């Protein structure tokens, strides 16, 4: 098991398996003690005690898509914010101006979205 960079990520990789093992291990443990009496009624879909009309896998609304899109845009912004955050002090005013422009342009995007009322639902 190497130290340093790969050691760190090896640990993290191992913890992924530990986490999965924790979840499924507990489920297996529960299997030992829990009852299992399946019946048709139990396995029906819950919809307030009535047979569902239509499918559960219906479509969502386009508004959710626009929220997700807004998020993608700002998430990408965040990606550039972090490296900037730790070097801008060394680069000085120039870097701050660069980020002002960057954030300004994205602020226009947000303003446009607000202006277009994609956040209003009714």
């Amino acid at each position, binding site marked *: 098991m190497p130290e340093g960079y790969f050691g760190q990520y090896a640990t993290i990789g191992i913890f992924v398996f530990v986490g999965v093992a924790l979840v499924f291990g507990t489920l297996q443990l529960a299997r030992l003690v829990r009852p299992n009496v399946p019946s048709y009624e139990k396995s029906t*879909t*819950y919809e307030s005690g009535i047979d*569902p009309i239509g499918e559960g896998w219906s479509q969502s609304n386009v508004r959710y898509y626009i929220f997700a899109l807004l998020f993608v845009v700002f998430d990408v912004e965040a990606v550039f914010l972090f490296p900037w*955050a*730790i070097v801008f002090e060394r680069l000085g005013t120039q870097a701050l101006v660069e980020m002002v422009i960057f954030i300004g342009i994205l602020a226009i995007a947000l303003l446009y979205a607000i202006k277009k009322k994609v956040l209003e639902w009714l």
Partner: protein
Amino acid sequence: MFDITLATWQILVIKIIVILTVVPVGALVGGYAEHKVMAHLQHRLGPMYPGGFHGWATTLADGIKFLYKEDIIPAAADRKVFSLAPAAIMVPIIMTYLVIPIDRALIVEDLDVGIFYLLAVGSLSTIGLLMAGWSSANKYALIGALRSAAQLIAYELPIVLAAVVVAMLAGSLSLIDIVETQNWPFAIWPPGIGFIAFLLFTVGAVAEMTRVPFDMPVAESEIITGPFTEYSGMRYIFAHMFAEMGHMVAFGGIGATLFLGGYQPIVPIPFLDFIPGVIWFSAKTMFMIFLFLWIRPTFPRVREDQLQKFAWKFLIPVGLALVLVTGAWVLYV
């Protein structure tokens, strides 16, 4: 890392054992704290019987009870995705514990990308929620999944921006570095900036945990329990209860680390150094958790569109402005 020489695999085993204890114990204690704090805020006693003393074993008993519950997968559900979803929700939460420094040397791994790792891993839960909601083939679950996904992504941004502010002040992404640079906790110094970032973080964290007032996705009076409507038994615990509590403890720790100075004393007085960092860290984490618990019995829940508007029209612009203000502060003050 340690003065005592241990083989790397021994250290690894210790780490695994520690995390495997901290996560469930944290969730149990969080659950118990929720019962009791809320009860006292509402002029009642809360659980008093299980375990004898002030019902300390309540959450433990709850957990054991759920162990004994039948695990039902609805016939209409997509079995594979349905059973994987709890793990997809739970594992990222466990992963966030890995980079939180409990003390100078007590951290599973101090990554160079520290905060960024936290955010990246944190964003994975969204997929798990969508998996849970979609695979249940239930309309409430689907609505809940869409709501929670939309909410989680919207409120991730204030947290990201608050974290950027912290990174700018600390000049590093590593959480150890961030704690070390906080002579005064960031929530106090620089004046205003740190506190606003702290508020952004707290609001975002409450929303990420889908707790009142941002608990639209699991609003029981509207859509039952949202994405987890069809879940039962242990799967439900992992997908919902355990995840919420685990999240709460994790966010408590993150908040304490980023804004309250982590394992450092709350004020830079050398006299206070005799108190070990673990105590400081735990106290600050508990303060954060108390904050989260306090919010719950205080507010009604907001509506989905109000919630989105609040994020996009208020929190995110404030966060963006704050980033620039912080930049000016760091460069010119």
